């Protein structure tokens, strides 16, 4: 076991993948000498060379479009989009090209491309640097979408994403990059939780709290606080946003009878809406209350002096939990 930050854990996972398969490439803006603006690729170009860790021109569509071409040639590119709000110039290449190659070719073509996106707010940034664009990609068949929340998981999840023959959009909670945890960097991927599985992070019996990425930690803290009020919350890290591990969710909600979904992304048509619909369908007779959502408002991400009001925090999570007990 080694104590690693989230940033370093992903870095170690990338290193493992680069070592294991010469077809793995890293490409993006400033990923080389600089090591990425969050240092996630620190030292990799020095060790693996400029043709495997590629500083690209400043063009997101170009990064993903050329990654598609490299994948067609047998490579496994891992693209870094520098910030969440900069993924949109690459949107067509991701949604209309990357996601569709397999179907377009009737299965002849595989697309082992990973797109890493630092996401979410809470770092006092300017516009376009704090967004949560995950549902645009969840809505697109052909893509897998995952979100890591902490170092240990991130270390294995990035390797699993790279090993997948399907395109994976890999969200990294940027305000948690410097969170530290114990990581077993010698662990075998074979024994790891599958990339498609949710994880029950804290067991509980009174309500289920579902989250992913940056707010997972907030939800765990909320569960600790709720315990002092005599409430036992079950916290689930969804991890895979597409496909959703709905079986784990349903199992928990049938047990607790209450469900709160927590995410930074705007509440309207967010992942919480999809989960609410599925929980309604699968847990109707078990529900004590409607599914509640603690999420970003249906507004653009505000200027950073307002973000503490925009982002769901521990109190807003507990408030949502409280509301499920009002029924």
């Amino acid at each position, binding site marked *: 076991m080694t104590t690693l930050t989230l940033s370093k854990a992903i870095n170690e996972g990338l290193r493992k993948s680069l070592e294991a398969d010469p077809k793995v*490439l890293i490409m993006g803006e400033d990923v080389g000498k600089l090591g990425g603006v969050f240092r996630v690729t620190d030292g990799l170009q020095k060790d693996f060379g400029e*043709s495997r860790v590629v500083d*690209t*021109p400043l*063009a997101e*569509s*170009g990064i*993903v*479009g*050329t*990654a*598609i*071409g*490299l*994948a*067609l*040639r*047998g*490579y496994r590119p891992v693209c870094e989009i520098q910030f969440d709000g900069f993924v949109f*110039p690459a949107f*067509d*290449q991701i949604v*209309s*090209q990357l996601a*569709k*190659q*397999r*179907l*377009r*070719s*009737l*299965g*002849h*073509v*595989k697309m082992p491309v990973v797109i890493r996106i630092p996401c979410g707010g809470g770092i006092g940034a300017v516009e376009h640097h704090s967004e949560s664009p995950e549902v645009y990609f969840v809505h697109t*068949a*052909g893509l*897998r979408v995952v979100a890591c929340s902490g170092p240990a998981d991130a270390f294995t999840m990035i390797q699993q994403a790279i090993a*997948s*023959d*399907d395109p994976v959009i890999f969200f990294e909670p940027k305000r948690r990059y410097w969170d530290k945890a114990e990581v077993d960097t010698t662990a075998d991927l074979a024994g790891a939780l599958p990339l*498609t599985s949710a994880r029950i992070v804290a067991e509980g019996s009174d309500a289920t709290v579902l989250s992913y990425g940056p707010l997972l930690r907030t939800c765990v803290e909320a569960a600790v606080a709720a315990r002092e009020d005599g409430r036992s919350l079950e916290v689930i890290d969804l991890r895979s946003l597409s*496909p*959703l*591990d*709905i*079986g784990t969710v349903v199992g928990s909600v049938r047990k607790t009878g209450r469900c709160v979904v927590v995410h930074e992304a705007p509440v309207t048509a967010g992942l919480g809406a999809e989960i609410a619909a599925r929980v309604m369908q699968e847990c109707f007779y078990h529900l004590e209350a409607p599914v509640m959502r603690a999420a970003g408002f249906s507004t653009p991400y505000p200027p950073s002096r307002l973000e503490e009001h925009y982002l769901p925090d521990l109190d807003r999570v507990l408030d949502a939990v409280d509301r499920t007990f009002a029924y």
Partner: protein
Amino acid sequence: MAVDADGAVTTAPEPASLDRQAGSRVETIQLLTPEGERLEHPDYPLELSTDEVKGLYRDLVLVRRIDTEAIALQRQGELGIWASLLGQEAAQVGSGRALGPRDMAFPTYREHGVAWCRGVDPMKLLELFRGVSHGGWDPAERGFHLYTIVIGAQALHATGYAMGIQRDGLVGEDGEAVIAYFGDGATSQGDVNEAFVFASVFNAPVVFFCQNNQWAISEPLERQSRVPLYQRASGFGFPGIRVDGNDVFACLAVTRRAMQAAREGQGPTFIEAFTYRMGAHTTTDDPTRYRLATELEAWKLKDPLERVKAYLVRTGGADAAFFEAIDAEAAEVGRSVRQGCLAMPDPEPMSIFENIYSEPNALLDAEREQFAAYLDSFEAGEVAR
């Protein structure tokens, strides 16, 4: 295009808005005049045997026949839509025949002539336009990627593929290269310009082959550019060449040279094949709403097939029996396309769920089961009745 006294240098009749540009005198590489007269160009020597010329003529006739048949099938409701290549046969056959077996082509949705040269079954193209699949062929099998409908997106795929060739160490002697096809409208797209940047800074082995057919649906070239398109390349740092896109010899020679340069590590080339879309943009389009019949008439005189025929006749390379045999073969190809199209079954409903992911997807599996049960409920009902 006015041909100069020596026949090699021509001055293109630029639209008024282009005349203000410095250097508006444009060289267009031409090796075969519309009258079928052979020209030499010092940079593009081309030795073709009579059989090779006959082979090119056969390609041109057969791809036009496939195109004509497909338009008829659309008119009869057998295809949802068809994007005709009429008028662009020489650009496609010339460039297509310049490729080696290990080269890779990235087409738009109009490259039926290139598909023919690569050996892709025309039925696969019809599948797409009939709505049976989105393409479905194996790109690796023939070195011909899937048709890409979003304008210009494939230029980046081609460039990335070329970057892969570099990483495979296959640039140099016995190297491989990539050709990216797109049209004049696509030169306005960000993706095409980003592809130019990536290809240039990485010196990728890719040739950008732009068929300037003068029209992007209803928009004329001057809505895309104030400079001749091939001149754009210089700003990106690689050579740009204009070739007579209705001259199969010139398209072959120019593409061969550019591909060889790419294979050897000299980086990208931009080729502007100056041609004309003789038909509608697609079968849903009505070009009489936006362009003059006189323009069409002028281009008819530059027909890509007629000039090769004239050359073969002029040089005594082919007799009437040859042309009759080609026409008979074209009729047979037309029949086979028609029969193949009419015999094409619709895909099974459950195939909607196939080839989305390589790995199992529980949510999709659940939808599949639900839909299968729904379909079965009708069959059960019919049996009961």
